[in-house]
């Protein structure tokens, strides 16, 4: 069987080189029974309607999918034809061969349609997504937070004790590399997609909102269950990761539209930044191009609104169970700035809650539903601080993310029917290689980098026992470097004046080293190893580690694609059992 599939794959690959017809969902797609999805065939040239033949397992596609086929003779901006079936669904599990023929072109793909078990193992799912969380982030967070003596960690992160795990491949349908949109979309729909895309297969037309859609987990839960849904992030709530829970667009930058998609699905708890896209155009600070007032619209739907930490605390007492909390017009500030240094935009938004408080409120509200819930919690700034290579801020964010996971694990103690998944969506090219020791002689910072036996151990302290290092600018700190970078000044030191901005754009639209850091004692110019159009360190293609615990978690093992993760979630919740008649 395995060799047959391998042979089939090889054949399909060879065919797709010679034949430009494309069928969405793509070959080897995995589809849950009953889940609505769009089917699209893009022919390479203009064909005649009566020539087109689209069959699924030899039967007309419209019969199998239960929806009519639309023929588009010439797609907008493209000199070629397409056929489209919106929101079709397949009721029976099995392997389906999809064949499209027209004008001498033929394309065949295979879909795997699955049912879930009949009975649920889990009632609740908490999906923790550490954006960009790589192995180095976890190691750094553990050492900074817990310390290390004679080579043994003095304590463990909450995520260190999750008992099931898998390695996750994160590549996109159009690139070996990935971004947060397409990976989270795969986790949240079971379909892989292209960079920047959410809840759709990325088609060839220019319109970012007309691409063939697939169902998101929030939509699937709304369709099949009465469970509550929560979305929590420290980023703009319309940013790729939280957006993937509900959205359909080819372009993650469609943030105004994504706010509307959040309103369409209406997760019961929505907490994060990004209020600018909820405000009507006429309000200063709005980033909308219309007069829709989503704060008012959510309030009219019975949501309690919270605009800061104090209001979020007050909203805890709401008996509607529905909270919209927006704590920043853009991305929320990171823990190091918010709670310790008071830098970044904390001056403008001084009373922002953190991920731990948001997670706590969300769990409390969602747990009121006897039918259970799905909660997505994103530690967004692990990634947002890794791009500018601000490793201290990224590690502190990882500590905060881990504390939120701790709340999930506490909850699971009293609610053992809860599946907890902790993963990243992609990695960064970052590693810890030893320490930087200011006490080493000389002025050249590279001579203070200790490797192997010269590294010793860092001297972070946590005297107040809050789990965060009392300060990050200790004399012997972790030496952390990225393997890819734009032009920048390496200072070998934490950035106490605010998040690092390694490069700035010049008049030729090239990113050059930010001169602001040139005069930091010991700073050295580092010539970038990437194109000058790249403004920061980039995502790595390396696998992500996924860890999980609770009922259903045993399905995570070995190597999996991100799209396989979805099936474990819906299997645990048994949202699509096969009809028995």
């Amino acid at each position: 069987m395995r060799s047959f599939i391998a042979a089939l794959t090889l054949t399909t690959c060879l065919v797709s080189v010679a034949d430009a017809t494309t069928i969405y969902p793509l070959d080897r797609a995995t589809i849950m029974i009953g889940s609505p999805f769009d089917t699209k065939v893009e022919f390479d040239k203009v064909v005649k309607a009566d020539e087109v033949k689209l069959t699924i397992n030899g039967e007309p596609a419209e019969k199998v999918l239960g929806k009519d086929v639309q023929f588009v003779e010439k797609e907008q901006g493209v000199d070629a034809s397409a056929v489209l079936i919106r929101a079709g669904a397949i009721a029976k599990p099995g392997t389906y061969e999809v064949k499209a023929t027209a004008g001498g072109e033929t394309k065949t793909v295979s879909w795997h349609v699955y049912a879930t078990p009949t009975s649920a193992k889990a009632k609740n799912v908490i999906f923790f997504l550490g954006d960009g969380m790589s192995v180095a982030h976890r190691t750094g967070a553990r050492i900074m937070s817990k310390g290390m003596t004679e080579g043994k960690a003095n304590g463990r992160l909450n995520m260190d004790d999750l008992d099931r795990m898998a390695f996750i491949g994160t590549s996109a349908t159009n690139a070996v590399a990935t971004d947060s949109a397409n990976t989270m979309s795969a986790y949240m729909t079971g379909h892989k997609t292209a960079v920047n895309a959410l809840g759709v297969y990325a088609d060839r037309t220019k319109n970012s909102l007309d691409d063939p859609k697939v169902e998101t987990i929030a939509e699937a839960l709304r369709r099949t269950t009465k469970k509550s849904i929560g979305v929590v992030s420290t980023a703009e709530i319309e940013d790729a990761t939280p957006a993937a829970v509900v959205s359909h667009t080819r372009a993650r930058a469609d943030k105004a539209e994504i706010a509307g998609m959040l309103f369409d699905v209406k997760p019961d708890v929505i907490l994060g930044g990004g209020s600018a896209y909820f405000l009507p155009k006429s309000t200063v600070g709005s980033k909308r191009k219309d007069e829709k007032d989503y704060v008012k619209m959510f309030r009219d739907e019975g949501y309690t609104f919270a605009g800061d930490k104090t209001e979020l605390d007050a909203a805890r007492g709401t008996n509607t169970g529905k909270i919209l909390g927006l704590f920043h017009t853009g991305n929320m500030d990171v823990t190091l700035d918010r709670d310790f240094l008071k830098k970044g935009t904390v001056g403008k938004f001084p009373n922002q809650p953190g991920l731990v408080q948001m997670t706590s409120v969300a769990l409390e509200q969602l747990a009121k539903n006897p039918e259970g819930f799905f909660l997505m919690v994103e530690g967004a700034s692990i990634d947002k601080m890794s791009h500018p290579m601000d490793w201290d801020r990224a590690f502190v964010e990882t500590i905060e993310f881990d504390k939120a996971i701790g709340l999930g694990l506490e909850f699971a103690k009293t609610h053992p029917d809860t599946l907890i998944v902790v993963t990243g969506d992609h990695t960064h090219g970052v590693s810890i290689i030893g320490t930087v020791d200011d006490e080493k002689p000389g002025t050249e910072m590279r001579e203070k980098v200790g490797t192997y036996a010269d590294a010793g151990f860092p001297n972070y302290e946590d005297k107040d026992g809050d789990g965060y290092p009392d300060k990050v600018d200790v004399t012997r700190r972790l030496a952390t470097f990225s393997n890819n970078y734009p032009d920048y000044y390496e200072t070998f030191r934490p950035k106490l004046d605010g998040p690092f901005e390694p490069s700035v754009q010049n008049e030729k639209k090239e990113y050059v080293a930010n001169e602001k850091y040139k005069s930091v004692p010991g700073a050295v110019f580092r010539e970038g190893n990437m194109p000058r159009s790249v403004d920061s360190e980039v995502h790595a293609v390396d696998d992500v580690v996924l860890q999980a615990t609770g009922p259903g978690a045993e399905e995570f093992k070995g190597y999996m694609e991100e799209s396989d993760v979805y099936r474990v979630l819906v299997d645990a919740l048994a949202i699509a059992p096969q009809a028995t008649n």
Partner: protein
Amino acid sequence: MNRWSLTRRRLLATGALAAATLPALARAAAAATPARLDFDELYGKISVLGLEFSEKVKALAQKKVAMRGFMAPPLKAEADFFVLTEIPMSLCPFCSSDADWPDNIVVIYLDKAQTFEQANALIEVTGTLEVGSWTDPNTGFLSRLRIVGASFGAA
């Protein structure tokens, strides 16, 4: 700062009074002394539900102002407008879309199109302050605060 703006307001009031009798003289006086406006004076209240313009900005609407800042990397090499920013503009290193603009910006419309030089040098812009939303029909660019009929030079 308050004392200064009070003085300024009194001056404007005097100017307005004078305008009724000696318009040419009043205009000359206003042109000679544009009010200085700083980035941290733009908004009186900042919250997640929106920003409110400061009293100073409201008072200076349709008046001559001078602001210091940096020219953001222009959209085109030659144009009649650019964005003045508080700090040398580096598009935020992690934004996925350049549709996101920071709040500490003012759009500058010049009298005529001109070729821009290297950004990231402190400049001073003088012109008439316009307050409120306006969409540029040519570019679709929505601005909240503008200095129109502007000229600029090294600060």
